[in-house]
């Protein structure tokens, strides 16, 4: 099934970007606004979900293929969470595999043994 591009209307800068083309500085006013909104949204989500804080997470950014990978220590289990989101389904799968391989590589370099999942 062909995958449509996701619809996204919550860009960090809501003003048409070209507005800033010749008016450098205007966009900076969005800084407080979007970070406040992010905090508000997270507070709203906390009310709607069971959750635990995720300390020490990182977001890896890749250009080839384009995509992001969130890598975080699992707060309750002895493992790392790897969640990849690429520009296409195949890119996501590749990023996910690369992220997991990298975790294994670093574990190996550190002498930490991997155990088979139950």
């Amino acid at each position, binding site marked *: *099934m*062909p*995958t*449509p*591009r*996701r*619809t*996204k*209307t919550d*860009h*960090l*800068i809501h*003003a*048409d*970007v*070209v*507005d*800033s*083309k*010749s*008016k*450098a*500085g*205007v*966009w*900076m*006013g969005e*800084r*407080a606004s979007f970070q406040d909104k992010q905090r508000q949204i997270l507070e709203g989500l906390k009310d709607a979900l069971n959750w635990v804080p995720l300390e020490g997470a990182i*977001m*890896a*950014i890749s*250009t080839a*293929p*384009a*995509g*992001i990978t969130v890598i975080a220590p699992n707060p309750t289990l002895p493992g790392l969470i790897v969640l990849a*989101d*690429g*520009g*296409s*389904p*195949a890119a996501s799968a590749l990023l996910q595999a690369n992220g997991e391989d990298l975790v294994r590589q670093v574990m190996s370099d550190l002498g930490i043994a991997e155990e088979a999942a139950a």
Partner: protein
Amino acid sequence: MAATRLLWGKYFQYDRDGEAALLDPVALNSCYLDRREVTDLSAVSPTATHDALAELGFTPDGPAADRREALRNLVLDPTPHRISGLRIVLTDRCNMACTYCFVDTNSGKPDMTEEELAEGLRYLFEENAGQDEVSIQWFGGEPTIRFDLMQYGDELADRLAVEHQVKRVRRTVVTNGARLTDEALNHFIRYEYGVGISIDGPPDINSANRLLLGGQPADTRIRGNVQRLVGADELHVGCNLTPTAANIGRLAETVAWIIDTLGLKFIYVNTPIPTGGRWRVNGRDLARELYEARLVALSKGGLLFSVLDRAFQALDTRRPMLFDHMQGDGTLNAAYLPGKRVSLCDINFTEPDFLFTLNELRHHPEVLGTVTKRIAPIPACGDCPALAICGGPSRNEQLLIGGDTPDPEMCAFYTETVEIALWDNTGVQ
């Protein structure tokens, strides 16, 4: 390796490593096909992929319409209906002599007077009575040379906002950062300025084009002033980065330096202007570099905005993003110049077609249409995947290049941005 072809005479198909992305250049719908679906698509219709594409709005039916006409029918009125912001050019005096500045600096022309400034601000607030916001940007030359006028104007703007029931005044200043008095810093904090510092990169890059009038670099001084600005929590401080021969090829490194060393996390990359009649950068390379730099900024907790974001926003929202002459709400940011003159294009202060007096604007508001962009002015625009994202040269660009036909590097830039954005569906910014 990527290749582009036309599917059913109306969709652009980008093939890469066996996968494909489809783009409707007018409606801005796009989708992705995996290897099996790409193979399926080349089989005799109807296949499961043909059916699935039809559900997404991609069909082989119907005549290949005139895409330029279809786009023109789709977009809103391209004529600005009001000036909602002024870039106020206080003086052409500057303590630096940057080689690429579009302003003719230190010409000896008189600065703006208090009386001229007051009349310009009165016009702005009268035009926007009852609105949520007006914007004022202090500009030069180096505007802080006339800090006295900035103080006067800010105090007057507050009074005018009350008088005309304008809810908010958004204030910004574009400065080279080479001079910053304590008085100015406190003033910026008091009025919650957005401060945009024009800087091209580390000293070896910045000093290639940005030197003090005496020819010496100002980087140490600028760095110290940036630290003072960044240290003031109430301020929004960012960097205005101009791509030049010195930093193209090093944009990612430059952005990393700006974030790591200067502590500026908001970077706006100025769009090349065809000064001298043509683009002076390789459009395709610039697009790729901006993309790399954007991701470097994100990976360091910063944000980089450039005209590249137009492509992402257009594809993400399915909305054309081709108006570079006015704001998304149909209003205009104009430049206010000494002598009570307004330029409807705020990056061109000399073109007679854009220049009007305040009285002319008051009595003939229809002249705002002078700056209106002609959408997709040449037939070749209809065959371009960036049709609804570039839309062809702006009026200013047309005047600078002396015609309707865009510079080939501009076309290369926009077609590359579309391809980059099409293959990056991550929505990270």
